[in-house]
């Protein structure tokens, strides 16, 4: 049993890169921009009190969800977190139903009962965002059980944060997934902070992926701003899971560009640090620059992508705004029936 060094991982992956068609790369860019613009609109709407409660923007981390979700299929399961919009969109969720949920409307994914932290779309294999940090990790083990017993090669992706990795369920779950050789891909989105607590202060080891050693599963660290790198590692982990080789732990090093939620000024982070990530590690810039350089795409293609996404988000907001509130009568009846 040995921990795979970062270098080693990357070298082994170059082969897969050749399979990455232009279409896939453009699709990745579209998804990343879609998440970014959706989240930006959500923050605006939150400030206008159209959305309330707790909202955790995924801005800055988009390449993780997109890279991972591009490596799985529609039939695969996904377990998400409180910062889950990106996971939903990357898995193919409908923007209108998402927005309607955030507006608390009856047409939302959860009929307006869940809100941002509880969006779920079981038809898409989206087993739910979660308001409880770490709450989804053991659930992914159970879904992995089902996949294994079904025997059709279906896999589970389980997202969680650096903060969640310090909750007891992380240990219980990864150990179980490993002893039963379950097809689960654990994706730790290490954005360096759990609310105000820096991972350096919260976590005894340098990389969360180093813990894979203790669970006897492959562990990878990857630059979470680079969607193609994320995709390559995820693909490898997914292939292993489908082949019955058990779980993997991927740690994506990433960063949230904003506070923990829209009202958090995030004063616990240095300005320089934030500037660095916004400038050097913006998933949109990283991919756009590469695709422009390799002439896969032109500026005007990007403009068109942006326009199309803007239009779809406008439509989603309109749908949410025009949708009816949940019906009180129905609500009371359903409680009585329950």
């Amino acid at each position: 049993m040995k921990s795979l060094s970062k270098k080693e991982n990357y070298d082994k992956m170059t082969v897969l890169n050749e399979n990455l068609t232009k279409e896939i790369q453009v699709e990745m860019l579209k998804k990343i921009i879609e998440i970014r613009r959706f989240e930006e609109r959500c923050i605006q709407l939150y400030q206008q009190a159209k959305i309330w409660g707790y909202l955790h923007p995924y801005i800055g981390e988009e390449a993780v969800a997109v890279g991972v979700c591009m490596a799985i299929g529609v039939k695969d399961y996904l377990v998400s977190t409180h910062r889950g919009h990106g996971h939903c969109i990357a898995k193919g969720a409908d923007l209108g139903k998402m927005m309607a949920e955030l507006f608390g409307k009856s047409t939302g994914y959860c009929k307006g009962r869940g809100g941002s932290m509880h969006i779920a779309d079981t038809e898409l294999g989206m087993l739910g965002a979660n308001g409880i940090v770490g709450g989804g990790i053991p659930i992914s083990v159970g879904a992995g059980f089902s996949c294994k017993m079904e025997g059709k090669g279906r896999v589970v992706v389980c997202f969680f944060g650096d903060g969640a990795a310090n909750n007891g369920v992380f240990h219980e779950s990864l150990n179980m997934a490993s002893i039963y050789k379950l097809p689960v891909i654990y994706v730790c989105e290490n954005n360096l902070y759990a609310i105000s607590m820096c991972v350096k202060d919260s976590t005894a080891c340098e990389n969360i992926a180093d813990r894979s050693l203790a669970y006897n599963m492959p562990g990878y660290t990857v630059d979470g701003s680079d969607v193609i790198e994320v995709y390559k590692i995820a693909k490898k982990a997914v292939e292993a899971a489908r082949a019955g080789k058990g779980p993997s732990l991927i740690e994506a090093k990433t960063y949230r560009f904003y506070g923990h939620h829209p009202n958090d000024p995030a004063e616990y982070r240095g300005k320089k640090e934030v500037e660095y990530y916004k400038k050097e590690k913006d998933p949109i810039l990283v991919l756009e620059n590469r695709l422009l350089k390799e002439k896969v795409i032109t500026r005007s293609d990007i403009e068109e992508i942006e326009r199309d996404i803007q239009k779809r988000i406008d439509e989603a907001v309109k749908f949410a705004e025009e949708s009816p509130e949940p019906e009180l009568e129905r609500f009371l009846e359903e409680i009585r029936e329950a």
Partner: protein
Amino acid sequence: MRKITYLEAIREAMQQMMREDENVYLLGEDIAEYGGAFGVTVGMLEEFGKERIRNTPISEAAIIGVGIGSALTGMRPIAEIMFSDFMTIAMDQIVNQAAKIRYMFGGKAKVPLVIRTAGGGGTGAAAQHSQSLEALFTHIPGLKVVMPSCPYDAKGLLISSILDDNPVIFIEHKLLYKNKKYMQHVPEEIYRIPLGKGDIKREGRDITIVATSFMVQRSLEVADILESEEGIDCEVVDPRTLRPLDMDIIISSVKKTGKVVCIEEACYFGGFMGEVVSQIVEKAFDYLDAPVLRIAGRDCPVPYSLVLEEEMIPSVGRIKKGMLDLLGRF
């Protein structure tokens, strides 16, 4: 006379007790430079340093276990669990460990641990950040459960909780923290309100309202409306500590008015007020002129939709209507 908020009263109690006793310390998530999710511990790091204002990873079971271990060995920890919903993650440590150690060890050990947490809804935070779980704790012998409804009580009760040699679950309400409407005169010096002693928040002749936490404030609002609109004179009783419970203050009020309505934010089924009602029926049945009324949260998880949440949690309208129905006035 200075007036302060509920949040400031809680902070002041902790600051003063930490100055008095170096064994008192805080631990919890984001309580240091961030000042806690609701800002209760803002400024405390600067005064007491990071050893005594101890930031922890997101490890609720360990937070409570650490509290127990250090309480057993001479400290007086105050553990903060950010939302009361997350208490469930530490349930073994709270229920099987903290609550039982003193008794199980033949009284030879004590666990002077305070667990502070923010409960309740009305904030649009949905099912996992809005619950009122006090009944889970009041069911457990060995735990004391405190739910202050105003700044004055919050300070005096928290000081008593810190001085108590038993584990105390101290449940604060999010809607009380910063609202200026509930600001109150609070003495600057250290004072204690004994655990197990209720308070009459409003005297009245016609009907007794027993309520806890934020529902005390809501009941006072309804009492004013009923007085001005209907001439009904309500007495509002706040037990303040749910366990030990001051049943005497409730019974004597019921004997006076002959009618009682029990109001809580938590779900109806299995709620704490079920206990209050059963004791009223046992101890004061002959004094009752009307059936006992319970008004509580609807039996469902707290919904995100504000329309639904308003319907789920007892509102002024629902309380008023329930009481008018009970009194036969339509």
